[in-house]
């Protein structure tokens, strides 16, 4: 075999190696997306679990704020049933809004504000809110890297051949984003 033959073989070998590396990177990123999504779910579930306790505690001190309490319960139910990143994002924003107005109302009840379990719930919900938005941020960061890889040349070829499709971001509106920085 001549020199040209060896060069061709070397070139093909390089192409195959590149293909394998890119394929593995795509698989790795796709798994990270699944993992990041699960992380968001864990935090959302944590928030769903905290809300009944909060509602019970607030009821004990401010039972006639029925409207705000019912809004929180309804928003929680809607959020738990929502499917898919876009719909879920919207429902979660609604829930954040309802919680925010419940905490705003509690300002008027000094006894409630002095209650230790209320204060604990407040810290837990505030930090869970933060964790939800950080989990979203991480999810979107991973999606960004994955989408970039599936769209840029030459990795786009491998992505198309192996059926790695573009993924959807976890969108959120600006009101909910600002909400994260609120000091409870």
């Amino acid at each position: 075999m001549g020199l040209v033959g060896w060069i061709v073989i070397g070139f093909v070998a390089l192409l195959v190696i590149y293909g394998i590396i890119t394929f593995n990177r795509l698989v790795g990123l796709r798994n990270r997306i699944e993992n990041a999504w699960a992380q968001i779910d864990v935090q959302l579930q944590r928030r769903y679990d905290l809300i009944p306790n909060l509602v019970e505690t607030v009821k004990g001190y401010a039972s006639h704020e029925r409207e705000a309490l019912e809004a929180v319960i309804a928003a929680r139910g809607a959020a738990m049933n929502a499917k898919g990143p876009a719909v879920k994002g919207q429902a979660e924003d609604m829930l954040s809004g309802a919680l925010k107005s419940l905490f705003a109302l509690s300002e008027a009840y000094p006894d409630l504000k002095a209650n230790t379990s209320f204060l604990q719930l407040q810290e837990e919900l505030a930090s869970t809110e933060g964790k939800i938005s950080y989990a979203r941020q991480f999810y979107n960061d991973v999606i960004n890297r994955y989408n970039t890889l599936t769209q840029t040349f030459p990795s786009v070829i491998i992505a198309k051949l192996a059926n790695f499709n573009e993924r959807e971001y976890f969108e959120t509106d600006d009101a909910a984003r600002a909400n994260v920085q609120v000091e409870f």
Partner: protein
Amino acid sequence: MFDQVAANKRRSALLIGGFVLLVVGVTAALELLLGFGRLWVMVAVLVAGVSSFLAYWKSASVALAMSHARPADPVVYARLHNIVEGLCIAGGLPKPGVYVVEDPAPNAFATGRNPQHAAIAVTTGLLAKLDRVELEGVVAHELAHIKNYDILVSTLAVTLVGVVVLITDTAFRFMWWGGASHRRDRSSQGGGLGSILGVLGLVFLVLAPLAAKLMQAAVSRRREQLADMSGVLLTRYPPGLLSALEKLRDDSTVVHSASRATAHLWIEGPVPRRDDEGRLAWLGRLFDTHPPLEHRIDALREL
């Protein structure tokens, strides 16, 4: 912001490259002066490497013990734990050990050889003086150190300084008791050029340890700036770290349990600053492990 992170990474890579060049230069100078450099350098690299590696492997426990840090109780310090957990989610990092140092001075540090064996410690003063958003900024800075493997980078820098100091030190001793005659033989063979090179080599050897220490400080300052930027990349909220740094600047308490040995770890240089007004102030700043807080605040303002 992404550009800042990339530029900082590039510059610290350049600095490490410069370090390696320095070691190569010292080797060449020794070769010239004494006729044997390579073996010497290999021994020095081995000695400095092994000792630094041990220090690196145990870095977390040593640094925590030296600063009297104790584990933060998850109930008492619920807020701190929650902030750390949230930011770890944002960075896709495992949760590090969380420690508290009983000290009124606001400060914090991170340590550990990799994200799986990391710890961050904050002083009680920091918890008392900063609000949630500011605390998040500081914790994000510390997590950025972990994420960027800064403990590894600074260990590398310390090792290379150790190599340079070790070689030049022993070289001078060697020349003192007998290497000199050997050198004269060699330079007489080379004539005038040889002796000029010999003098240059000697000057180089004298200055090399100093240069090494300067470069170590430069690496450290670069990593601090990088941690500021990649910390903000975690919180996506520059004003948090910004106002935390402003509070650190306005606070004059000094951390008692910190020493020069652990200075490079803290978010703000814990060793009291010299008077910054003097004519030689710029000289002192070259040896600082941290960039002036003003520079860091300005860099954050630009985002």
